[in-house]
């Protein structure tokens, strides 16, 4: 039902998420933001079971902030991703597992941009591009075909647009608009929402 996508470039990460908050067959909100800002240069995109997403994402968010307050510097994206994965893994075999699928995108001064794919089984993979949701079945091959490690920002947005258009064409559910954000060495930038009218 929900869709997340991330594309890593040479010095930036582009991420997008759909804006629908649904409850069974009804769209309750059309402008819901699924991205959580962990720090100045790290975004966590979170989809999955209804209450689990917000609870887990906010838990991670507050803990990352706490680390900064205690130690005076921020966690790197890789550290934050591993911390998130550890929490997912710890809760997985408890009585309260969190059923969430995540993308963590960030920019580190020394390591550069990073995109981390995590799923509810607490797997973690650093990937050049990734997607979550049923929409991923439709768009991963487009990403495979057109992705290059040296994509410019404009080209990355174009690639994202191709993916969204494919969803609009073939995906059974209506996902009318997508929030788009870009992370680079200067922080998180909000980009223009991609809105498609029904074909």
């Amino acid at each position, binding site marked *: 039902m929900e869709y997340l996508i991330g594309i890593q470039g040479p010095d930036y990460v582009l991420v997008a998420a759909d804006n629908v*908050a649904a*409850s069974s*067959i*009804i769209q*309750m*909100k059309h402008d*819901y933001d699924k991205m959580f800002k962990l720090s100045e240069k790290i975004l966590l995109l979170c989809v999955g*079971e*209804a*209450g*689990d997403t*917000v*609870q887990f994402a906010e838990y991670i968010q507050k803990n990352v902030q706490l680390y900064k307050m205690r130690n005076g510097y921020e966690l790197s994206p890789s550290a934050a991703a591993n911390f998130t994965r550890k929490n997912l893994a710890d809760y997985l*075999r408890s*009585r*309260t*597992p*969190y*059923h969430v699928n995540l993308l963590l995108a960030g920019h580190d001064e020394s390591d550069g941009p990073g995109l981390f794919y995590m799923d509810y089984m607490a797997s973690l993979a650093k990937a050049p591009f990734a997607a979550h949701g049923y929409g991923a079945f439709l768009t991963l091959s487009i990403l495979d075909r057109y992705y290059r490690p040296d994509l410019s920002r404009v080209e990355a947005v174009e690639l994202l647009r191709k993916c969204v258009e494919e969803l609009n064409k073939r995906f059974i559910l209506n996902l009318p608009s997508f929030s788009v954000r870009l992370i680079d060495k200067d922080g998180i930038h909000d980009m223009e929402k991609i809105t498609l009218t029904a074909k």
Partner: protein
Amino acid sequence: MALQDLCNFGDIFQESVGTARNVTASGKRKSCSYASGVALSNSTSLFHFYIPEAGYLDESPIQFGQISTMQSSSGIPFPEMLPIPSSLPESLPFTSSQAVPLPFPMAHGTTTLAFMFQGGVLAAADTRSSCSGLVACPASQKILPIHSHLVGTTSGTSADCALWKRILSRELRLYQLRYGRRLSTRGAAKLLSHMLHPFKGTELYCGCPCFSGPSLFYVCSDGTRLEGSLFSVGSGSPYAYSILDQGVRWGLTVEEATSIAREAVYRATHRDAYSGNFVDVYHVTSKGWTRRTREDLKEEYYREKERRRLERERRGTALSG
């Protein structure tokens, strides 16, 4: 900050039951009985007030679905399953995110709706309480005022809704007394959402558009919490949504808004078997909430039939039955 204080609330009560910190006398008595009766009295979490005694859950003949399916299928060994009574003190076991089976299908038989407009927030709900196929009460109240400026609509199990409304009222009042200001709607919604989180998976209670001027939140027992300007909850909600989506704009007058809210509930009750009887309309503004007299939708049905008949006669065309 506030939530942390509330979570230490248990401590305060355990230690100083006799002090005059309690809000009302009846509240104090209730808390005493909780403190003595529950076997978990040395716990410090607020939530342990709300769990029935461990003994009761163990002996209850009706499996309310909180106990996992794994236990009921006896032959299969599950090494990680702890017996329920001992696991209660450490954590709340009923928070599995898998759906657990219920003794009978509890549909959220209701139509409630709320929306914001220039004149404040309007809420409307039907009044039928159903219980698997029979109308248990045709005149129940589904919109419960929490305080003078906050009203919650309820959908789901009536008992749970009533309970949580009272718990929320109590917590908000305590917040007000402690900090000298009213908790915002956003805060109240967050508080309710966090209080419901341990009970996730038990289909406890669903859908509480609670609002005070001017904001509107939808809180659900599965953990969803959304801010918006139009929500409808319950089995009749799709029907209500379609009427509301056509007519609700920011610039409505109070009369127009009331009329469309009534119309939406009426149409939903017409189509949905589990909604019906009367309609309640509440209007919340900065001065507080006001309630419109309860209206019987049966009359509305007959009035509409009459209107249609007159229109047909006026047009002079004969329409088939």
